[in-house]
């Protein structure tokens, strides 16, 4: 099967000369959970943000190299259309200052989604994020009134509502308790049937639990990229092994 995303010689630099990513080449398979992990400052989040061009919003970031989505260069794509195809869930749940329902419909309204189908889309997205049962009776209360774990699943729901092809998650469970974390992880396994998932996990353990394929990043370099089972059980690179077994990090 053709890879969903192909990254070729991607480098990201900041104006002050610091390098965030150095010459990354990577193929991300469709309908799998791909894990980008490694110690802080390794460039994982930068890579994630490169995939839907969120780095464009930051002044002084220089990106070289190519990223292809289904064979098309994303640098040439319409950026709002790209971001609808490649959705993002951030480390901190940031519900927009609106109701639960409006958080889900926000992206749809911007995309000109027909109003008549909105009700159905809201329920579908909230169900996909395993949140429907908990919030179906308070869709119109402010999104900040629900718990942190629910907020993060709401953030996932509003991304899923757009029916993207790729879902990016940047440490989505870093602020969550184990039960909420388990719920988010479970919904990832559920949604990968329909979506390509790229996630920066918040721990090596989580990486091991959810990875179909895994990429280990160290200081802006891609050290090793392999199917999850291989990489965590029998890493080829000494640095990967040291990190996975907890010798540094």
């Amino acid at each position, binding site marked *: 099967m053709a890879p969903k995303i192909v990254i070729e010689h991607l480098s990201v630099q900041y104006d002050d000369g610091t390098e965030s990513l150095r010459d990354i080449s990577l193929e991300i398979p469709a309908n799998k959970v791909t894990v980008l992990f490694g110690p802080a400052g390794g460039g994982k989040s930068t890579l994630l943000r490169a995939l839907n061009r969120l780095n464009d919003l930051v002044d002084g970031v220089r990106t070289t190299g190519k990223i292809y989505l289904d064979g098309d260069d994303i640098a040439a794509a319409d950026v709002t259309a790209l971001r609808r195809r490649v959705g993002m869930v951030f480390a901190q749940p940031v519900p927009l200052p609106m109701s639960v329902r409006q958080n889900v419909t926000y992206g749809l309204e911007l995309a000109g989604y027909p109003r008549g189908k909105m009700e159905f889309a809201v329920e579908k997205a909230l169900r996909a994020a395993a949140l429907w049962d908990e919030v179906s009776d308070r869709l119109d209360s402010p999104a*900040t009134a629900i718990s942190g774990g629910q907020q993060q699943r709401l953030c996932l729901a509003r991304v899923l509502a757009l029916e993207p092809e790729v879902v990016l998650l940047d440490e989505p469970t870093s602020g969550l308790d184990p039960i909420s974390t388990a719920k988010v992880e479970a919904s990832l396994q559920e949604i990968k049937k329909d979506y390509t998932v790229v996630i920066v996990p918040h721990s090596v353990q989580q990486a091991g639990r959810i990875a179909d394929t895994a990429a280990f990043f160290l200081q802006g370099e891609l050290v090793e990229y392999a199917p999850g089972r291989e990489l965590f059980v029998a890493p080829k690179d000494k640095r990967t092994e040291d990190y996975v077994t907890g010798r540094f990090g």
Partner: protein
Amino acid sequence: MATVYCSLATVHFEMSRQLTQRLVFTLITLAAIATVTPIVFVVGYIAYLGWPAISWSFLGEMPRDGMRAGGIWPAIVGTLYLTLGTGLIAVPLGVAAAIYLSEYAKDNRLTRSIRIAIINLAGIPSVVYGLFGLGLFVLFLKFGTSLVAGCLTLSIMTLPVIISTAEEALRAVPQSFRVVSRSLGGTKWQTIWRVVLPQALPGILTGVILGLERAAGETAPILFTAAAFFLPRLPGSIFDATMALPYHLFVISTQVPGMPIQIQYGTALVLLVFVLSMNVVATIIRSRARARRQW
């Protein structure tokens, strides 16, 4: 033994801390009283002397007998017109400028100098604006002494206040909202219109009202540009001169011999209530928004 010393030292320390606490608290309370007392006194004094003059005929009639009798209706209407006109010009311009500065402008030498210019504009004495308005609008653009010249002059004076408070309100909206909206496929303008502006609106409105309140109360900027000494009719077009409360007050307090004192203080009271009620509206908007804030 050591513990005894230790606890004695603690007791001593504790007492001096309490003493400092009490002293500072007293000083702060005194400062607050010292600030509030003159305000209460001024308002009370004007209300006491002006209240006997207030009646429906005083509010709703034309001045008569060289302004020594009758009402102040044209001055009230003039001030309303001037305030509204200033709002119509200054609010869209000021908010647009604030959006540009906060959302679009790159942080470079140009925008920094624009910001410095705005801050300095806010510090220019109002009579200088009046003179500028006389030169530009009344004489050069040939608007004459008119409502439109007065509104434009007041707008220029009000703009810095509106721009800086609106920019501050926009900047206070968390950056993460913008990133989230963009990541959901929102354009820059959709993000500003649907997320940033609604959040900043209470702050912007507060700045707008405070700016307009100043415009309503100023004498100097309309002195040469809009105000008529005595005009016992309402302005018929925007190119007519108009009476206005602050200038009327100035005139009847200094230029008219034999002026009954309660008319002077009655006029002052009306102006004061006008400005204070705008202030109250601003306060209500702000506290409502604070109660509703979700982050």
